[in-house]
């Protein structure tokens, strides 16, 4: 029961934030992630932000997959 999607905070108002998922917006709660800032990518689950997405780690994973793809499967 863990469908969660990355969302970008475009507005923060105390413990509520407006987030954007591919152009779709929703108001979600920051009660479980009070330090999240405008501009952060967060993981959204059932109307709550539950973690900040570490962009460095996300880039690292993407880079790793790209490298693996270039490897000729030797």
């Amino acid at each position, binding site marked *: 029961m863990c*469908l969660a999607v990355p969302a970008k905070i475009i507005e923060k108002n105390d413990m509520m934030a407006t987030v954007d998922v591919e*152009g*779709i*917006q929703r108001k979600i709660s920051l009660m479980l992630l009070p330090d999240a800032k405008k501009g952060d990518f967060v993981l959204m689950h059932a109307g709550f932000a539950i973690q900040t997405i570490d962009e460095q780690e996300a880039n690292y994973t993407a880079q790793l997959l790209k490298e693996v793809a270039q490897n000729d499967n030797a």
Partner: protein
Amino acid sequence: MRGINMGKGDITMEDKFITMAHGAGGVKSRELVEEIMVPAFDNEYLRQMHDGAKLPVKNNIAFTTDSYVVKPLFFNGGNIGKLAVCGTVNDLAMTGAVPKYISVGMILEEGFPIKDLRTIVDTMSQAAAEAGIYIVTGDTKVVNKNSGDGIFINTAGVGNLIDGCDIAPRNVKPEMDIIVSGYLGDHAAAIMALRHNLQLPDTLKSDCAPLNKLVYKILQAAPKIAVMRDATRGGAAAVLNEIAAQAGVGIIIDEDKLPVRKEVRGFCDILGFDPIYLANEGKMVIFADKTYSSRILAVMHKDVYGKNACIIGSTNSIAPGEVGLRTAIGGIRIIDMPAGEQIPRIC
């Protein structure tokens, strides 16, 4: 519209809401028809004001009916009235007919705002004009408060079958191309987002549209297409499964080729939907011999309702009746017939 006196009086409708009197067949009923319906739908056949419309048709006709219930009644890109006209027009077009005349039956709930009814009727009139069809007969009934959902609409329609076209699932053979006319899932997203406090960008609208003129152009360019069907309830998945079963062919479509807007993908990610199961109201799926594909696409790309058309897959003889989807990583999964309504999930 039986028994309507067409003498133009000075009646002006002052009621703000539908009352039981509007369905009782008396003065109020007449006001409703004369001041709202007739001016909006006006045409020579409706003006006959007979028990039924007397219509000129060629020998072979297509005939269809559909009922429309939707919540919310008004949504980005249309309303229930537009659905009711386009839906029946499209059903006729899919049979290879030129839609001509439709009927409109409305069931109104006591207390329904007259201004909303006017909006719906005006939209129907515009949709009929765009499709080039006539609304030739109709009926309204009123039910008690809480016995309806504001408004239900039924439309039925007839159209002239185009000579030389044979649109039927049995014509579908292995190794044919499968074409969709544009982005999938826009309508469902526009309807369902509001229910879950999701705010869609204004650019994302229901795709509700009459496809008959596009279909006519396609059939002029390629009269021998095997079959086409509009992908409404159950989405493209339902159409693909129906055709696979009826034609006894297998189908493989390519996930990478499915046209889905990023907003609709986002909507699906949030609520756990699959875009291929989402309802459309202005999209069709065409099965045709590969030799016709480029001609069909060329025609479609010039039309506002087909400009994003593309080939999404093909039929085969390997797995009769089965619809498979080749995934982004090269696997295959079965796309089965949708089981009932789409329900959002958190899991």
